[in-house]
C-alpha cells in the first residue's frame, strides 16, 4: 500500500472533479484540451523550480511513498501533481464562476495586492537568505503586480476568494504530503531554507506559492478559453 500513497493523493484530488466534469450543466470535459495546454504553460516554470530545489536539497521526497520512477530527479507522482492540483482548482473556479456571482469580491483587488505586497516584501527582505521563502515572495509579488497593474485583470478578488474556499482541500492534500496522518512526511524540507512557520505540518510558503500558481493557472486558462471565439 505504502508505495501508492502519493499516487492515491493525486488520484483523490482529481477524481470527483473529473467525474463532475461530464455533468450536463458543467461540461468541463469539452475544455480538457485547453486545460492541459494552460496548465502546461504554468507547470513548466514551476517544475523547473521544483527540479532545481530538489537537486539543491531544499526539499526531498521519501521514495517509500512513491512507485519509484523518476524523471529529472522528481518522482512521476510529483509531475502529476502539477496537473492534478491545478485541475481541481481550475475546475472549482470554473464552476463557482458559472453558478454564482462573486463579482463583489473584486472590489477588494487594490486592498489585496496592497496588503500582500507590503507583507511579502518585508518578509522577503528580512529573510532573503532562506531561498524557498525568498523565491516564493518574489514569484508572488511579480504575479500579483503583473495581474493587477499590467494585465489589469478584474477577477483577482474573486480568485482569491475561491482560493480561500479551496483551503480545506489544500490542507488535506498538502497536510498528508508534509506528514499529517502518515508516519513520516512524503516531502521533507531543509530547515535552513524556509521560515519554519508551519500551519499544522504545512510550511506557510506552500500556501503562498500555491496562491500564485493558482492565479497563473486561472489567468492562462481564461486566456486560452477566450481565444476560441
Amino acid at each position: 500500500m505504502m508505495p501508492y500513497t502519493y499516487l492515491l493523493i493525486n488520484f483523490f484530488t482529481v477524481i470527483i472533479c473529473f467525474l463532475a466534469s461530464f455533468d450536463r450543466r458543467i461540461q468541463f470535459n469539452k475544455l480538457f484540451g485547453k486545460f492541459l495546454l494552460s496548465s502546461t504553460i504554468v507547470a513548466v516554470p514551476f517544475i523547473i523550480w521544483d527540479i532545481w530545489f530538489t537537486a539543491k536539497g531544499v526539499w526531498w521526497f521519501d521514495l517509500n511513498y512513491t512507485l519509484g520512477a523518476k524523471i529529472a530527479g522528481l518522482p512521476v507522482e510529483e509531475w502529476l501533481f502539477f496537473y492534478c492540483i491545478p485541475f481541481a482548482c481550475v475546475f472549482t473556479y470554473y464552476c463557482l464562476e458559472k453558478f454564482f456571482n462573486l463579482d463583489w469580491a473584486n472590489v477588494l483587488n487594490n486592498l489585496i495586492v496592497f496588503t500582500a505586497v507590503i507583507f511579502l516584501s518585508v518578509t522577503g527582505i528580512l529573510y532573503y537568505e532562506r531561498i524557498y521563502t525568498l523565491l516564493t515572495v518574489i514569484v508572488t509579488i511579480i504575479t500579483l503586480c503583473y495581474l493587477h497593474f499590467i494585465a489589469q485583470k478584474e477577477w483577482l478578488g474573486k480568485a482569491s476568494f475561491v482560493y480561500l474556499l479551496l483551503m480545506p482541500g489544500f490542507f488535506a492534500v498538502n497536510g498528508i504530503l508534509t506528514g499529517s496522518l502518515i508516519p513520516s512526511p512524503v516531502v521533507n524540507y531543509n530547515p535552513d531554507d524556509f521560515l519554519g512557520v508551519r500551519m499544522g505540518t504545512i510550511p506557510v510558503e506552500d500556501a503562498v506559492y500555491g496562491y500564485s500558481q493558482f492565479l497563473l493557472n486561472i489567468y492562462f486558462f481564461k486566456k486560452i478559453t477566450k481565444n476560441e471565439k
Partner: protein
Amino acid sequence: MNFLIVFGVCIFMEGATWLIHRYIMHGFLWCLHRDHHDHSHNGKLERNDLFFFIFASPAIALLYLGVKQEFSYCFFIGLGISIYGMAYFFVHDVFIHQRAKVFTKTKNPYFLAIRRAHKQHHKHLGKEEGECFGFLWVPVKYFKMYFNKK
C-alpha cells in the same frame, strides 16, 4: 504606547494624504491622478491606483527597519501607514466609488458624508480648482448634512 503610535500615524496620514492630494496629485503628478476625475481611463484600473506605491514603499521600508531594530517605533509607524492604506483602499474602493454593488443602501451617516464629500471633490475636472482633498475626514458641513437629517 505602541498603540498610540499606530493611532497617531493614522491621523497624521490623513493630513499627509490631504497634502499629497492637494499639492502633488493635483500638482506635478496630475497626469497620474487626472483619470480618477474624468474617468477617461479604459479598463477597471485607473492610473490613479498607482497611489498604491506612495503608501506601500515607505511602509515596507519602515516595517523592515523596525523589525531589524527589534520592533522599534519604526515598525509601528510602518504598521500605521499600512493600516491607513488598507483603510483607504477599503473605504475608497468599496464605499465611495462602489466598484461593486455592495453597501449601496447604507444609511450610516459617516459613510454618506465621506461619499458626498468625495463626490464633491470629483465634480471638479480641472487640476487647479478643487475642494475636499481629505479622505477619511471631511469638512464638518458634510457630517452636519447627514447627522442632522435623522
